[in-house]
């Protein structure tokens, strides 16, 4: 027994000798049928061929009907052979049909040619302002060191903004604060726009017992407006209060921050004495940089760049908050957010931060999904 296999292009051979059917011209019928199937050029033509041979009035069907006239033995034998013929033709029709479908799809795809070089609409996602992003970065780093965010009001009492921070009314440091004032209230007290985030130190210490470890990002206000001063800007304040934290911890914490924030493992960090009414001892913190050729490069060279102020919380400030300075101590620090953002991201002009210029915001802003995390590292 020979087997029909493979595509129709292969030599197609009938599975039996047609003479065995004992009928008129069955061999011719088979050969003709297979020829017509292979020649069908469209699904419609193929259907016509199928009907012609295998339909209810089809030629093969007719032969099948004629089987009944044969004797039982011959009928069984011829029936089997005729069924094989029918199956072969049906297989051939199915195979040809699939081939025609493939060819038709190939022809259709050949006509479907998009210009794949056509531009698609660009990114419609918005941006996060560099100030928000920088605050998130700072929170992420200090969060790793056990700090939690605290916040306070922008319209502050003179007491919280100055007096409690060891800046009595006639203190010369007040003049350097360029304070915005609100109208005097009926009781004669005076509200100010907070000139720094430090009042939140006071509010926190008066509300919660030590140990404390907070950072305070937020808006601050000074009555000064020029190329390097804005009437509103942002600071982040830090405060650690417990029984044992000393200046060595202050150094360790802020060195760690500077290196993590700027992403420079060996960034030189320098501490030098300074003065703030609310800390004693006090220190300014500088990072190493180079300014050769008028270009500022952080982390290289022999120059220094001041980036934050810090110190051990003044005993009087602790007393003002009802904390016994013989029992508790700690450090505080403050830094300008715009300043560190400008340094890190190469933003040249302070004033542009608040102009809401969409071109600027798109250029310097951050993607919404770029959520800072020291563990994930920087995007670039």
């Amino acid at each position, binding site marked *: 027994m020979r087997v029909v296999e493979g595509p129709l292009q292969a030599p197609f051979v009938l599975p039996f000798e047609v003479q065995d059917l004992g009928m008129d011209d069955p061999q011719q019928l088979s050969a003709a049928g297979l020829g017509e199937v292979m020649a069908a050029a469209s699904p419609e033509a193929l259907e016509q061929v199928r009907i012609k041979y295998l339909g209810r009035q089809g030629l093969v069907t007719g032969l099948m009907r004629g089987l009944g006239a044969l004797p039982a033995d011959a009928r069984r034998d011829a029936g089997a052979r005729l069924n094989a013929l029918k199956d072969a033709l049906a297989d051939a029709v199915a195979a040809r049909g699939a081939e025609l479908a493939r060819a038709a799809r190939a022809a259709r795809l050949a006509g479907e040619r998009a210009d794949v070089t056509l531009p698609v609409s660009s990114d419609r996602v918005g941006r996060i302002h560099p100030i928000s992003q920088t605050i998130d970065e700072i929170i992420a780093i200090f969060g790793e060191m056990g700090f939690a965010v605290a916040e306070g009001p922008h319209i502050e009492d003179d007491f919280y903004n100055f007096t409690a921070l060891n800046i009595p009314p006639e203190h010369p440091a007040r003049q350097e604060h360029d304070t915005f004032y609100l109208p005097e209230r009926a009781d004669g007290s005076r509200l100010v726009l907070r000139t720094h985030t430090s009042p939140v130190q006071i509010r926190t210490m008066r509300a919660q017992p030590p140990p404390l470890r907070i950072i305070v990002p937020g808006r601050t206000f000074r009555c000064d407006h020029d190329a390097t001063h804005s009437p509103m800007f942002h600071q982040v304040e830090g405060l650690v209060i417990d029984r044992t934290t*000393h200046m060595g911890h202050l*150094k360790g914490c802020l060195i760690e921050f500077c290196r993590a924030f700027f992403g420079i493992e060996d960034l030189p960090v320098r501490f030098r*004495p300074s003065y703030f009414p609310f800390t004693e001892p006090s220190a300014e913190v500088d990072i190493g940089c180079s300014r050769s050729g008028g270009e500022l490069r952080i982390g290289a060279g022999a120059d220094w760049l001041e980036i934050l102020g810090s110190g051990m919380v003044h005993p009087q400030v602790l007393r003002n908050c009802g904390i016994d300075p013989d029992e508790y101590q700690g450090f505080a620090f403050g830094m300008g957010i715009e300043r560190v953002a400008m340094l890190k991201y190469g933003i040249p002009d302070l004033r542009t931060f608040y102009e809401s210029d969409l071109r600027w915001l798109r250029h310097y802003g951050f993607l919404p999904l770029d959520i800072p995390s020291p563990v994930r590292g920087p995007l670039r």
Partner: protein
Amino acid sequence: MKTTLSWLKSHLDTEAPLAELVERLVMLGHDVDSVADRGAALAPFITARVVSAEPHPNADRLRVCVVDTGSGEVQVVCGAPNARAGMIGVFGPAGVTIPKTGAVLNESTIRGVVSRGMLMSGYELALSDDHDGIIELPPDTPVGVRYARIAGLDDPVIDIKVTPNRADCLGVRGLARDLAASGLGALKPLDTSPVGGRFRSPIALHIEEPAACPLFLGRHIRGLRNGPSPDWLKNRLESIGLRPISALVDITNFLTYDLNRPLHVFDAAKLKGGLTVRFARAGERLAALNGRDYTLDPEITAIADGNGVQSLGGVIGGEPTGCTEATTEVFVEAALFDPVRTAATGRRLEIASDARYRFERGVDPDFVGPGLEIATWLILELCGGEPSEIVAAGAAPEWRRHYVLRAGRIASLGGADVPLDEAGTVLDALGFAVERRGGDVAVTPPSWRGDIVGEADLVEEVLRVKGYDAIPAVPLGRDTVVSRPAIDARRRRLELVRRSLAARGLVEAVAFSFVSAKAAEAFGGGDARLRLVNPISADLAVMRPSLLPTLVEAAQRNADRGVADIALFELGPLYRDDTPEGQATAAAGLRAGHTGPRDWRARPGAVDLFLAKEDALAALAAAGAPVEGVQTAADPPAWYHPGRAGSLRLGPAVLGHFGELHPDLLDAFGVNGPVAAFEVFLDAVPAPRSGRARPPLQLSVFQPVERDFAFIVDRAVPAENLLRAARGVERRLVTEIRLFDVYEGAGLPDGKKSLAIAVTLQPQDATLTDAEIEAFSQRLVAAVEKATGGVLRG
């Protein structure tokens, strides 16, 4: 505070180079703003004698000069009219850079004569505007030496930011003392020996207000001659930017900067009777030495004679009794003025003087007498004359304070292990009286260190002088290995709102907290309590009642810059009153123009109120608000379009507003509409229920069925009414109702609209039969009809 290297060295015996001194100043806490070495550019220029000056053979106005440079003769061609044989000038050899122009001076041939250098004018050396002639030096000037040295210009000027606590370092000697204590040289002794008066001062002193002026010393000096100061003094003052006036005035300025000892010198001939320190009387006047007239009041500390107020204590002297070239007798005032009173006087009259700056910060209460003696010596030396005995009123306040520096305190507070003996040595070098007391050190700060008020200050002094580099950095440990949340749930929500809005295509802005009064009023604000007393400008005068005015202004600026499509948001504060609770956190956004640029695939839509509603609801959802329960009402605030805006409520709480801004408001801000905006009040959003576990999810195995219904309702019927009615039907079966079409116009009766909704039914127990679906449909239609009068569209 400026000084020069040589001035510093007049108090400090040191071999240390400039760079080391500057570095040490910085590390002692005296930040150095700049070091100006005026001599550097002048280094190659030397003094030279013009040996001969002959007319140029080929040019009338030029001369050929042979110049003796001390190391040989050089020929130069010179065009200056004053070039002549025998004079001494300033020579620049070929190859030098001319300071004024930055050009290199080359050897050249000028009309056939070789010129190998140049005789310099003050203009070319960038020292003056005089370019009519070359510099002429005195005939006894040595030849071949650096001109900068002759001119006193080789003295670098150091500009130091003295911190407000260190009044003592507003005198050069204070800086020298710090440097000496840190080991960079030795503090030179200061001669404060008394002058010895020859007669009794005819001018008596009286203090009426000891709180304003506890101590007043003075001395009369007669028979003196005022005139220009000698070069060394003029040079010192000029180098730090002060104008020399006359010897008497220059001496007081010099001692102000040298020893932080402000003084005043009256022309004694112009005084009437004795001097009294008192508060000014209302309406009294003084013509001050700065050329301005002041009207005084009782807040002001005055020094008066028989004619009235002649000086403002610790701030400025008066013109009528000031010294002139004709002065022959003076009364020298050395007093102690109270810092607070001095500050008040200065601030009231807006006078910023060197004396005020120092008295405000506190001058040495124990140096009033010595300061007066030094001033007297200088006056006698420069002006001659005969001094009186010192006349005095009041007494120096007690300044001695005692503190204990405990043995372990430098380590426990400062983190550095400095042995107590070493600490004592440092404090001693700074002028503190130090005494071992058991294991501790008892310390009395010197009279000039009023800033030292406790042990922490002593720790700082020791560490400052030892250098903060000596403190080892210690990691700030924490209790847990894994970090704990740094932000609370509220701030986390705000972060989510911010980043969700940005993800929706809005760009974050950060705007000022203050706006113009006009803008504040346009958005429902302008409360008098929120108006700044001293705004930077009228545009930044009132705390903003809303985030929208700053966004509208930003929209206007962006449009002016040619940015047509605007999508901005801000998340920040607004101010309802002046209490901490009056400050609220809101998110607001603004869109104008189209949702995107023109695109070949799809036409971008114009922004509209519904986009703003979408933004607002997205912000509220991110903030944790149950947005499916939020109701929309057509009652927007006045700054919105009355018919195309609304508010979002949760029960009685207003969570926000959205819609198109009112055209009147846009006109007022110069913005082209339409502008769609929203503002949501994040503090009004109820805190979401805590608990991280989600409710159990039951997924049905049965096919959901979706059915569409279109209703014809009156145009005025809010869609929300229809939806609410529909949602009330078979809540257990319905998983979603979506309004997908709104139609008005042809085919519908006048005043009617069609609203089409798609309802998704999700059976839980068995597949829905046609009969069940039909029954549901009838109930839904009936409910809608009852609530809205709407009928199913055929």
